[in-house]
Each structure stands twice: as C-alpha cells, then as structure tokens.
C-alpha cells in the first residue's frame, strides 16, 4: 500500500517535470534563432521569409491588464471583506453577500467574455474612451471582476482571525470603528491581505478567454490603456490555430514564460503564507 501511494506521488512529479521539459524543448528553436532578443524585442511578424518574434508586447499586455485588474479589484474586494468579516459579521446579510461573491468564481471565463463584449464594451464606446471598445482597460475591468472572489475570500478569513481582545482593547480606549480597522485589523492582517492580492494577481496573469474576447488582439506594444493589445495567454489562444514551425515554437516559448512568471508570483505568495502561519 505504501508503495502504491509513493508511486502515485511520483506521477505528479513526472507530469510537472514532463511539462517543463516539453515547454523547454518546444521553445528551443525560437531561442536559438533570436536568443534573448525574443524577450525584449517588440516585433511580431509571422510573414514567411521575414519572420521575427518578440514577446515584449504580450508581456507588457499581460502585466498591464493584470495590474489594472488588481488596482480596480482592491477597493472593491477589501470593502467587501470588511463588510463580510467585520461590519456585518455573522449576519444573514454577510452570508448572502459572501455567497454572491463566491458565485462570481463559478462563472466560466467565456461567459465573462460575452458579458464584457455585449455589455461593458458598448459602454466604453459610449463614454468615448475607445473607438471599438476593445482595449487593455476593458480586459482589465473584466479581469478585476473575475479575481474579486479570490481576493475577497482569503482577506475575509484573515480579517476574521484578528483576535477580539485586540479590537476590544482599542474600542475601550475610545477608538472609532474606522480607527480600529486601520490601527488594529489592517496592521495585524497586513501580510495575509497582501498575499491574497498576490495570488489574485497570479490568477489574472493566466486568464485567457475573457481577455481574448476584449483586448482587441493587436501584436504591438499598447500606447495607452485604452489601446488594443494582446496578453501572453490570449496570443497563444488566437494564433495557435494557424501555427507551425518557428511560430509554434514562439508560442510555446511564450507559454514557458507565462509558466515561469505565474510560478514565481504564486511562489512568493506561498512563501509569505508560510512565514505568516508559523
């Protein structure tokens, strides 16, 4: 029995090692051709004979959309965590709100994409922010909604964990609730809250469908947040169909970069959690 269990654990290591191996060997041709220029070059040209592949536009797009998402997500998710874990703690109102936020996590990415396309995009056109409505910003807004449940659930747990003694001590000194939140709860829960946003950021980096449907899919570095662009995940999704040879290798290399970046971000998050819980 012990041997079977051990063997099973080897399977997960093999899968992960195999993934790294496949990504690396798939990415070799493009790195051989362009070297590290692949990461810093912004030229993406699949025309035969003049092929040039640079991942910079997509790295920029990924970071920008995720950053917008996290900035928009923070005030919303943090308020909601306070609402559920502090202001209305234990009430029906809080559990209803919690359920609704959890439901956000259950909506498939493609449905977010449709909603963004048919509801949010016309709104952005109406406001005159972007002519077609396809932009880094549009994708970022939808991403923000998508990561709210992840940021909210961890932050709420951490806020609830802050000991009552500390809060009551502050109240007895005459502190208002806002003062208790900012001078007792936030300092105590700081690293946990930070971690939950790092993990939410990690989720935003890899989102594909909703982003693909809203970002406009242009392979140049966006000049502003209302410009169209492409992310690492979305370029794989919408260029994969016609890819082979060097182009396929370039897409695999982008997948490898995405794998490494999300791995690092999640690793940082897990490290902070470990330090925090000891």
């Amino acid at each position, binding site marked *: 029995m012990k041997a079977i269990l051990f063997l099973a654990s080897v399977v997960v290591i093999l*899968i992960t090692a195999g993934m790294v191996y496949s990504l690396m060997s798939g990415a070799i041709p493009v790195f051989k051709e362009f070297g590290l220029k692949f990461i810093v070059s912004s030229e993406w040209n699949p025309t035969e004979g003049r092929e040039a592949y640079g991942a910079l536009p997509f790295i920029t797009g990924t970071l920008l959309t995720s950053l917008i998402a996290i900035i928009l997500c923070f005030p919303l998710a943090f*308020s909601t965590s306070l*609402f559920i874990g502090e202001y209305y703690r234990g009430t029906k109102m809080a559990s209803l709100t919690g359920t*609704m*936020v959890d439901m956000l996590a*259950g909506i498939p990415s493609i449905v977010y994409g449709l909603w963004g396309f048919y509801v949010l995009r016309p709104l952005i056109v109406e406001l005159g922010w972007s002519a077609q409505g396809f932009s880094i910003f549009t994708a970022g807004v939808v991403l923000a909604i998508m990561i709210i449940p992840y940021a909210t659930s961890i932050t709420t747990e951490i806020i609830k964990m802050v000991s009552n003694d500390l809060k009551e001590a502050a109240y007895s000194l005459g502190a208002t*609730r806002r*003062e208790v939140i900012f001078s007792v709860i936030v300092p105590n829960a700081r690293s946990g809250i930070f971690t939950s946003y790092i993990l939410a950021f990690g989720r935003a980096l890899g989102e594909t469908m909703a982003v693909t449907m809203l970002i406009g899919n242009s392979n140049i570095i966006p000049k502003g947040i209302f410009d169209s662009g492409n992310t690492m995940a979305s370029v794989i999704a919408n260029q994969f169909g016609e890819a082979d040879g060097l182009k396929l290798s370039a897409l695999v290399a982008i997948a490898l970069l995405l794998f490494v970046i999300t791995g690092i971000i999640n690793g940082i998050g897990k490290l902070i959690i470990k330090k925090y819980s000891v």
Partner: protein
Amino acid sequence: MENPALRSRIMKDRLFAGGVFLMSMVTISPIVLIIYKLVSKGYRQINFDFFSKKAPDTYEAMVAVNSGEVIPGGILNGITGTLFMVLIASLMAIPIGLLIGIFLYDQKTKRYAGLVRDIVDILQGVPSIVLGLIAYFWVVKNITNGFSALAGSTALAIMMLPLIIRSTEETLKMIPDSIREAGFALGVPYHKILLRVLIPSGFSGLATGILLAISRIIGETAPLMLTALGSMEVNFNMTKPTSAVPLLIWDFYNDPNMVDLIWSSSLFLMMVVLLLNLVSKQLIAKRS
C-alpha cells in the same frame, strides 16, 4: 459632542462605513447583472429541443433568424462532449488524486512530502491555456495524431489533479487521529484502515472536493480549443475531435447567424456550475 476633533472622527467613521457599504454593493452587482442578462436573453431558447438536438448549421440558423423564429436545434453535441470528456478526465484524475492526497496526509512532515506539496501548488497555478498546449504536444501530436476528446480530457485531468489532492489531504487531516490509532491498536493492516476507516469517514469531504474540481473544469474553453477542437456531431470516440458546451458557445459567438444561441448555452453552463457548487456546499453543511 461640542468637541470638533471628536466630531470629525465620528464623521470620518461614518463616511468610511458608508464607503464600505457602497463598494460592497458595487462588488455584488456584476453577478446580478450577468445573471439578469443571461436569463432575459437566453430563456426563450431553452426548450426540449435544446437538450435533445445537436447544434444547427449556419444556414438553418440564418433562415430562422431572417423569418424571426427561434433558432432550431440545441446543444446536444456539446452536452454529450462535455460529459464524455469530464468523465474521462475524472477517471484519470480522481484515483491518482486520492492516492496522492492520502500519501501527503500519511507523510505529513517528511521532506519529500513537502516537495510533492510544493509541486502540487505549482501545478495548481499553471494557467489552463498552458495545460492545453501541453496536452496538444503529448496527446494530439503523439497519441491520437489529431485533435481528440482524449487530448481535451488530459488537459482537464491535469487541472483537476491538484484540486483533488489538496481537498483529499485537507479532509483526511480533519479526521481525528484517534480513529486511525484505534484501527492500528486492533492490528488492522494499513490498507484496510485506509479503505474501511479513513475513506468512509471522510467520504462527504472527498466527494465535495471532486464536485468542486469538476465545477472548475466544466466551463473551461481555452485548453479545449487547443485539444478537443470541437465537432458538429455527437461523438463518443476518444480519438476524434469532440465538442463541449463552452466550445459551442465560442463557435456561436464567432458565427453571426447563430449568435443568439450564446445566451441560452451560457445560461445552461452557468446553471450547471452553480448547481454543482450548491450540491457541494450542501455536502459540507451536512458534514459539520
């Protein structure tokens, strides 16, 4: 209350509370708006045909749209494809996931288990599109020599694996050690303790983990685009391209004649996911 400093502190407090309330309402508004949009635009299309007929071709849809009728046909090929691929993925991921979860629980403090746990965490963070690409290289290129249900299931199985491992470990951790030790004291062999004691007493927790894992993969589109591709026929052949509900939504979205079908299909997909979540929540509630 004549003290102006105190007054301003109280004012700030109230303003902040108001802000928190307002922001929370903004946070929950998207779910209401999305459900409203799906129901109001999609309910008309949901009827018996929707579940019993396969997707129409563009021409049929165009004729119906032009004459102002409801688009004929349904999403049967998507429903069967999703069921088929989720089933194969579950057959691959559940046994291994349970075993690894038990392994991690059993070896709690060992160094090697820590390594496995870290690797499971890495796996859980891998974006689904990357898993799709991997399944493309492993299965589409090398095993089925073409887009296939098996490739789609492989991508989905790798997604499910870390979720099942973690939930299994967490569930087993919550079972009191004394139950296990009682078994040992009676001289019961280890595998019997696992099969007869630990797994039955953690059953609802294990089932919850599996249901949540399924609800997470059932709406996945991106990895299936690279692996299962999609098909207009009902297909139960592992080595052939297969459709799935999210893939059909993507096809409908890209076809101006069929675009009306996206709402009903999305409504259906979302209902299934929410139902799975609800059932697993019930299981959790029953357990505690």
